[in-house]
C-alpha cells in the first residue's frame, strides 16, 4: 500500500504528474467534483493544526468525498494509551485514506506500516511535512513555469525549519538550481543537509547573514520565522530579529519577478505592507496546497484501486 511520508517518496516524474493534475483541477474543477464520491478521508490530528487539517478536508470535499475525524487528540484513543499502529489499523476499517499529523517524528511511518489504506503524512513533529512542500512546488511551478535554473533564497530559521530542508531536498533534484541560505549564525542549515544533499549533488550554494545583500540574485525568496525560543539568550534574539523581517524597503533591489513564499503562519517576519506587492505569493501557496492535496489523494486512491 503506497503512502507518502517524505517528499522524496515521490520521484520528480511523479511530482510532475501531480502538478499536471493540480493544474487540470484548477482549470476544470467540475471534472473532479465527483471523483471521490462515496470515499472517506480520515483526518487524524494528534496535535493542533487549523490550516493543514482544513486544507485536507476541503480537498476531499471538492473531490466529492467525505471526511471523518476526531474532535481532538485529548478525546482520542491515543489519550487512553493506544499505539499509533493500533490506531492506524482501526481507522483503516473506517476510511479509504488517512491524513495524519503527530508530534512524534516517524509516527506517520508507523501508521503507514500498519494501515491497510494509504497514509499521507500531514506533519510528524519536526521531521517531514511533504504536502507543504507540494504546495511550495506548485507555487513555484505556477509562478515560474519551471523547476530548473532558479536561484532560491531561504531566509530565517534554516536550522529547525522542516519546510526548508524538505524544499531543499525536493529542488536539489532539478538542474541549474542554486541556493542562497540567509540566516543568523545560530540558525544555519544543519551540516548534514549541506553534506548529504548539497555537497553530495554538487549543488552550488552560498551562506550569508545579509538578506538585503542577497536579494538582487534571487528568483524565489522563501521566508521562515525566526523564533525567540530557538535562541540561547534574549539579547541575541533582539539583536537579530529585525534583520530577517521582510519590508518593502528590503525588496527595493529584488528582481521584479521574484516570488516571495512563506509556509505560514506568519507572525511578523513579513510586514503586512508586503502583502499587496505582486511578488507576494504566500496566500496563493495556501490555495495551491489544497490543489496538490487533491491531486495526491486522487493519485493514492487510484494506486490503491479504490477509485
Amino acid at each position, binding site marked *: 500500500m503506497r503512502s507518502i511520508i517524505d517528499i522524496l517518496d515521490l520521484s520528480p516524474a511523479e511530482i510532475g504528474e501531480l502538478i499536471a493534475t493540480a493544474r487540470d483541477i484548477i482549470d476544470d474543477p467540475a471534472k473532479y467534483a465527483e471523483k471521490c464520491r462515496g470515499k472517506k478521508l480520515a483526518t487524524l490530528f494528534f496535535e493542533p493544526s487549523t490550516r493543514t487539517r482544513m486544507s485536507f478536508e476541503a480537498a476531499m470535499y471538492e473531490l466529492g468525498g467525505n471526511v471523518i475525524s476526531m474532535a481532538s487528540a485529548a478525546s482520542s484513543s491515543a489519550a487512553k494509551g493506544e499505539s499509533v*499502529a493500533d490506531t492506524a489499523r482501526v481507522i483503516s476499517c473506517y476510511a479509504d485514506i488517512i491524513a495524519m499529523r503527530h508530534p512524534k517524528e516517524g509516527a506517520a511511518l508507523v501508521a503507514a506500516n500498519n494501515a491497510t489504506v494509504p497514509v499521507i503524512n500531514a506533519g510528524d513533529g519536526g521531521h517531514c511535512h511533504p504536502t507543504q512542500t507540494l504546495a511550495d512546488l506548485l507555487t513555484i511551478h505556477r509562478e515560474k513555469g519551471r523547476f530548473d535554473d532558479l536561484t532560491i533564497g531561504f531566509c530565517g530559521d534554516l536550522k529547525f525549519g522542516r519546510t526548508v530542508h524538505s524544499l531543499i531536498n525536493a529542488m536539489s533534484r532539478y538542474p541549474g538550481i542554486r541556493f542562497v541560505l540567509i540566516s543568523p549564525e545560530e540558525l544555519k542549515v544543519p551540516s548534514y543537509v549541506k553534506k548529504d544533499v548539497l555537497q553530495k549533488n554538487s549543488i552550488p550554494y552560498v551562506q550569508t547573514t545579509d538578506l538585503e545583500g542577497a536579494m538582487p540574485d534571487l528568483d524565489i525568496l522563501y521566508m521562515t520565522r525566526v523564533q525567540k525560543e530557538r535562541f540561547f539568550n534574549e539579547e541575541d534574539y533582539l539583536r537579530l530579529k529585525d534583520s530577517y523581517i521582510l519590508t518593502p524597503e528590503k525588496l527595493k533591489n529584488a528582481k521584479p519577478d521574484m516570488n516571495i513564499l512563506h509556509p505560514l503562519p506568519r507572525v511578523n517576519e513579513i510586514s503586512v505592507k508586503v502583502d499587496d506587492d505582486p511578488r507576494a505569493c504566500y496566500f496563493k501557496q495556501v490555495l495551491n496546497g489544497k490543489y496538490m492535496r487533491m491531486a495526491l489523494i486522487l493519485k493514492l486512491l487510484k494506486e490503491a484501486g479504490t477509485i
Partner: protein
Amino acid sequence: MNVDSIRNGYVIDHITAGSGMKLYELLGLDALDVSIAIIKNVTSRKMGRKDIIKIDADIPIDLDIIGFVDPGATVNIIKDDKLAEKKTIEMPETLHGVIRCKNPRCITSTEQELPQVFRLTDRENKVYRCVYCETKAQF
C-alpha cells in the same frame, strides 16, 4: 597470558582496537554461559593494534552486528580444532533490534515496542539513520 585454543566456535579477529568491548556487549555475549576471551590491544602488523574475541561455543552469531560495529573485522569459524571458514564482513543495509534511537522526539521513545530499525545512508562514513526520524545512530 594463556588463552586456550578453541575446539568449536569463533575467532573474531582484526577488530579495531577499542571496539572489542562494544562488540561483546552488542552481540549479547555477556549473557552467555560459555567461555569467551576478549583480547585487547594486541600488536598487529596490519593494524598496529587490534582486539580479538574468542568464543568457545558453536552459537549463532549475528554478523550484521559485527558489520555495523566494525566492518573491517574477520570471523573465523572453528570446527574440531580446525579453521572451517573465514568470513569477511559487510556493512548491513539495515540493522534490526541492535541499538535504540536516542532522539527523544522519535516515536520509538514513547512506543517502546516498535522494532528499532536503522538504515545505512552513507557507506563511506559508516552512517546509519533511524528509519522513523532519520536521526544518526549513536552507540
